[in-house]
């Protein structure tokens, strides 16, 4: 039951990153996971539509490639509505950072708790988006603002068409915080 993965060379293309001055969070998505998904013809009847989306039986079978946008068929790419949209995530991530850190002062004890809390909240919001077939990873970095140079970056080896990331950054006089969320499609 092969899925015909051909991993093209991971040539790093340009990252579309917004690099902020200090503490820049550049979440680049350069390496494209060039997988040629060969959709196999289902041998018996091509009318069989396996279970509905929403995570049901995500077997490794694919239906005929002729009618790939049939709602109930298992597709190897998310449809537009089921796709992770970074803009949406960025917006609420920014809000979360703002609400939690607006007037806070950096405090070593608090910081650990706060960073965890922010990460959990971002994850909860992502789950709320109800994109059934996505796995999420959220990373939050909270640092004391002493004017130090800092840079945070990421590189991913994934499928550029279906996966994505979102980031948010907050800073005030005593602290800075960078949050990044990755959404990876589960085939």
């Amino acid at each position, binding site marked *: 039951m092969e899925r015909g993965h051909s991993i093209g060379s991971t040539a790093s293309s340009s990252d579309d990153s917004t690099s902020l001055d200090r503490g820049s969070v550049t979440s680049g998505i350069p390496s494209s996971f060039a997988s040629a998904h060969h959709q196999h013809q289902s041998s018996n009847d091509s009318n069989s539509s396996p279970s509905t989306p929403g995570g049901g039986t995500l077997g490794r079978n694919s239906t005929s490639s002729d009618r790939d946008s049939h709602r109930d068929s298992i597709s190897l790419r998310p449809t537009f509505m089921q796709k992770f949209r970074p803009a949406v995530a960025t917006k609420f991530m920014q809000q979360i950072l703002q609400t939690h850190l607006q007037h806070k002062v950096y405090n070593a004890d608090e910081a650990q708790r706060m960073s965890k809390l922010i990460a959990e909240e971002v994850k909860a919001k992502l789950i709320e988006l109800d994109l059934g077939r996505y796995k999420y990873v959220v990373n939050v*970095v909270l640092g004391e603002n002493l004017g130090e140079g800092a840079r945070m970056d990421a590189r991913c080896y994934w499928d550029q068409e279906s996966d994505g990331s979102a980031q948010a950054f907050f800073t005030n006089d005593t602290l800075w915080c960078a949050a990044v969320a990755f959404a990876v499609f589960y085939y």
Partner: protein
Amino acid sequence: MATEEKPKFDVKAATKILEEVVKKVLKDATYRSDLVQEWQSAIYQEAIARLTTHLKGNTFKFIVTSTFLESIGAGIHISSTSLWDAESDGAAVHRFENKSMIVIVYAFGLSV
């Protein structure tokens, strides 16, 4: 449901890879803001290449994150949370410190 064996993300191996890569790229360098980007690219290139060859690259998607900080006594906390398949996915971290900087590298492996 497919009953094939699920490959599991090998955290130990990944951590070792990250350690080797960071050591190789940074050796004993001093923090220089103009070189950070270069270092990061080198780390990613090397790390992803090694991860894909060692960890069955064709069944995993990888995310490698790094944070470089100038070490001037500032405090920092990093948290990470995820929604994934606990049986097959995992994360590896490596922290590198020297007199001038702190480097934290994360590698997440998510099975397809």
